[in-house]
């Protein structure tokens, strides 16, 4: 399958309109891709944990859009969209979810732990919050090497309670590193509501304690996400040091496919469903003068095709060979090879 370019965000008017349609494609693709994943999960074709990002697609789309090749991202477990927007082949992503050889981790792990370094995407461990120090380290490299790049660390408001998050933000502040901290505050960590997680309304205030600024933004409003992110990413790229954005959002589905989420308030859910980022963005496209019905039709088809291709690709991909479980543990290295040789030589002698 052909590799796509990492997208860059166009500044001028005409290209921008084109790009805004691309944004619509992405936000729709993410939603549909995840719906298909959920379906495949029910069919037992996807075996591991699956965490829907439905309701939060505007964040990943709007944050990734203004990024460039060479930027570094650590997605949250709900951020499958990061992979799609950054141009990872949908088929390989689907293969990853199915544990196939052609998946990002070649079947070693599932879901988003694979990462795709060629697209600047770090595959986080499950340990929430522990990817923030890594992101900060990537940003340290950018600073040391004068690279014009930005590292983006996604995390949930739940993960924000972990110590690693504190250590990472503090260090980023001290060294004014080019890192954007993106909190997706969806008001729940699994079943635990925000009131049991923190005693403040806006997590963004914590940035002050690390010497940079924290912003609060409507996370379901793609344009708002995009505009704020673009502004801050530019500032960071120009040496302005870290920034934190807290996106207010909501998880439309359960924590994972297994979770009926009965602990949630139905009114709250309805309230937030009425802030669905997709119709909100469609409203914008209409105001922009697009013929929405036509746009929809085109995008529907494109999305359907892409997903079907991805599923076909993944389903037709082989599982890894059993012995591959013992591969990819160590990078080959001059030293190890020398050691092997020396041991081999000794073996031959004695």
């Amino acid at each position, binding site marked *: 399958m052909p590799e796509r370019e990492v997208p860059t965000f166009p500044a001028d008017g005409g290209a921008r309109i084109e790009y805004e349609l691309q944004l619509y494609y992405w936000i729709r693709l993410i939603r549909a891709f995840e719906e298909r994943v959920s379906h495949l999960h029910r069919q037992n074709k996807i*075996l*591991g*944990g699956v965490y829907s990002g439905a309701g939060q697609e505007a964040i990943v789309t709007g944050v990734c859009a203004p990024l460039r090749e060479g930027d570094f991202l650590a997605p949250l477990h709900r951020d499958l969209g990061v992979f799609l927007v950054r141009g990872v082949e949908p088929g390989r992503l689907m293969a990853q979810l199915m*544990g*196939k*050889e052609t998946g990002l*981790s070649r*079947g*070693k*792990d*599932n*879901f988003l*732990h694979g990462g795709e370094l060629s697209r600047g995407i770090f595959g986080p*461990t*499950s*340990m*929430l*919050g*522990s990817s923030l120090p890594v992101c900060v380290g990537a940003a340290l490299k950018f600073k040391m090497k004068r690279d014009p790049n930005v590292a983006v660390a996604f995390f949930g408001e*739940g*993960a924000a*309670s*972990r*110590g690693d998050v504190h250590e990472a933000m503090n260090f980023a502040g001290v060294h004014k590193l080019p890192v954007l901290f993106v909190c997706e505050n969806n008001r729940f*960590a*699994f*079943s*635990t509501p925000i009131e*049991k*997680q*923190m005693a403040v309304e806006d997590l963004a205030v914590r940035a002050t304690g690390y010497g940079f600024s924290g912003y609060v933004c409507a996370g379901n409003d793609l344009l708002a996400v995009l505009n704020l992110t673009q502004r801050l990413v530019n500032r960071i790229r120009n040496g302005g040091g870290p920034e934190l954005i807290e996106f207010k959002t909501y998880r439309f589905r359960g924590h994972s496919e297994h979770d009926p989420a009965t*602990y949630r308030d139905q009114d709250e859910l309805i309230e937030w469903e009425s802030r669905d980022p997709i119709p909100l963005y469609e409203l914008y496209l209409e105001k922009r003068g697009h013929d929405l019905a036509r746009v929809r039709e085109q995008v529907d088809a494109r999305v359907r095709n892409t997903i079907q291709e991805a599923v076909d690709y993944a389903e037709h991909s082989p*599982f*890894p*060979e*059993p*012995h*591959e*479980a*013992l591969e990819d*543990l160590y990078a080959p290295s001059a030293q190890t090879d020398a050691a092997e040789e020396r041991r081999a030589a000794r073996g031959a002698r004695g």
Partner: protein
Amino acid sequence: MEITYLKAINEALHEEMRRDENVFVMGEDVAELGGAFKVTEGLLDAFGPERVIDTPIAEALIVGAGVGAAMLGMRPVLEMQFGDFISCAFDQIVNTAATLRYRHGGLASCPIVIRAPSGAGVHGALFHSQNPEAWFTRVPGLKVVAPATPYDAKGMLKAAIRDDNPVVYFEHKRLYRSVKEDVPTGDFTVPLGVAQVRRSGDDLSIVTYGGTLHQALEAANIAEREDGISVEVLDLRTLLPLDREAILAAARKTGKVLVVHEDRLTGGIGGEIAAIIGEHAFEYLDAPVRRLAMLDTHNAFSPPLEEFILPNTAKIVAAVRDLWAY
């Protein structure tokens, strides 16, 4: 009554909280949700939010705060949502908790229980399948247990809660709903530190614990039926302190020992056990002590990979035959 392993743990929690008002439960999603696996189900309704506490995602805090409360007389039962995340509380366990009594000159105790759902074979991949026990079995001051049956799960959790020392309690996720047995409804405890012979045999001994106990018992039956090999199966139950006498007795009895665990081979507790046997039952051994364990890699996800690296009944049977043929 016949209950599952999961239900047995849940019952122990209910009963201990009823028995002693200083027992409380703390962890992520343990209250309203009843835990990711429903192990703490019903506790919130029975004991209220002061004694069943949903914490933020902060494993170091969960354990550290447990220690603080325990020093002042409470008996916290602390849940790691998955045993894998115990790495995030590592320092609090191996330093703060394990050395507490020692550094206070014997004048403080630390009666906490850390419940850690562990184990593979449930498509959990790298970070929802780990068997972290051997990180802790090398730390004096801790006790480490890994019950394999509903009866033990209940009795040992009760014993752990009543124990005045920090206990890391590994419960195997695969067993939650897959094993059932008759468990008394009333109060009983299973002492920590005592292994149990689960099957008597004369030709060869399997030493195991936790998830692989059931595979080992199956394998022993197959080996007896198909090959006439009489296999003893010892369930360690407690991993720190080890029941050395029981291990050595099993080794001396048959002279052939196969150690089985789902934890990785290198650095798993099997090495310690083999070393103890090799040192203290040397004259009794008719064959090398063999180990069958997860291969030295991570908990790979894809079914063929997971199948390849984990021990199972067939692999145990093969290892038994091989050792018998020595």
